[in-house]
């Protein structure tokens, strides 16, 4: 018995929905609470740091026991650029998926490669950002801002990295010609995860970077 036969034998599901797709959505629902806890902590600790550096410029801030001028660490142009790349990578994977579903291998491989490159670029941006902050004196344990910021964005970055690994695996399958239209779901699942990582960043970007 071949594997195609084996798959054909799977009975139709009770809802008519694909079981793996249902699982990835269930997992995404669960992840919402994971990021909610991290974001809550970041917000709860906003303005509670006892020493600098702090995220934003402030003409009056209480640091080291006295009021003084503080310089923020955030580099909004850099992170805006990273945000845009991540947003566009979501568009790229949509194009790749429609290529996979219509059996257009060129479209699939091209756009999927672009997605992976976009993801890698975002991770690179984040590594550079962390490095930059570090040199401004913001270590992981410096204050509660740095601890909650690095933990939140670090976990997001880990998710992006896992997404890149997942998408790269699918890309290898596609290049080897093992992603025919009837298996496009393999890409759809990775794409759903990728979009989720993107929407988490859509929340993090304004809440963490743009709100003073």
């Amino acid at each position, binding site marked *: 018995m071949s594997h195609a036969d084996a798959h054909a034998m799977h009975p139709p599901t009770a809802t008519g929905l694909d079981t793996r797709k249902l699982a990835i*959505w269930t997992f995404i*629902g669960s992840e*919402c609470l994971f990021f909610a806890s991290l974001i*809550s902590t970041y917000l709860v600790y906003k303005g509670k740091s006892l020493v600098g550096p702090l995220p934003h410029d402030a003409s009056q801030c209480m640091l080291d026991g006295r009021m003084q001028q503080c310089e923020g660490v955030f580099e909004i142009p850099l992170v805006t650029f990273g945000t845009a790349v991540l947003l566009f990578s*979501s*568009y790229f994977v949509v194009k790749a998926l429609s290529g996979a579903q219509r059996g257009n291998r060129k479209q699939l491989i091209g756009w999927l490669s672009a997605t992976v490159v976009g993801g890698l670029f975002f991770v690179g941006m984040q590594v550079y950002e962390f490095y930059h902050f570090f040199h401004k004196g913001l270590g992981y344990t410096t204050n509660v801002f740095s601890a909650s910021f690095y933990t939140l964005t670090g976990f997001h970055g880990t998710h992006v990295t896992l997404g890149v690994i997942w998408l790269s695996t699918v890309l290898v399958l596609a290049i080897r010609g093992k992603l025919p239209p009837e298996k496009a779901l393999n890409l759809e699942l990775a794409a759903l995860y990728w*979009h989720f990582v*993107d*929407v988490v960043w859509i929340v993090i970007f304004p809440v963490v970077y743009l709100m003073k």
Partner: protein
Amino acid sequence: MDGTSTPAEGHTHPTPALYLRIAVVLFVLTALEVGAYEVARRESPAGLAAIVVPLIVPILLVLSAGKFALVAMFYMHLKQDSKIFSGLFVFPLLLAAVIIVALVALFSVVHLVP
């Protein structure tokens, strides 16, 4: 719930042009976010900026929610996919939002107590 099975894949998908338009809108909304941020951080805002400053948080939240909804509805196909998927996403999302708001509120209320 049993009757809500979805149309097969590749069926009633939005057009490529729509996907591109959404990408552009996402980009514009992001630019508006950063714009609002830049306006709000000016030293002595006047005119338009004077309105933005007190409203910066709601403005950012609305813009961000708009982007979120666009990606979820179109890129994640929730608009045309089974309502079960939407439920699996929206319910945890609401709970997450309530928990964030509750925790922020709880910690700021405690702060008022001397």
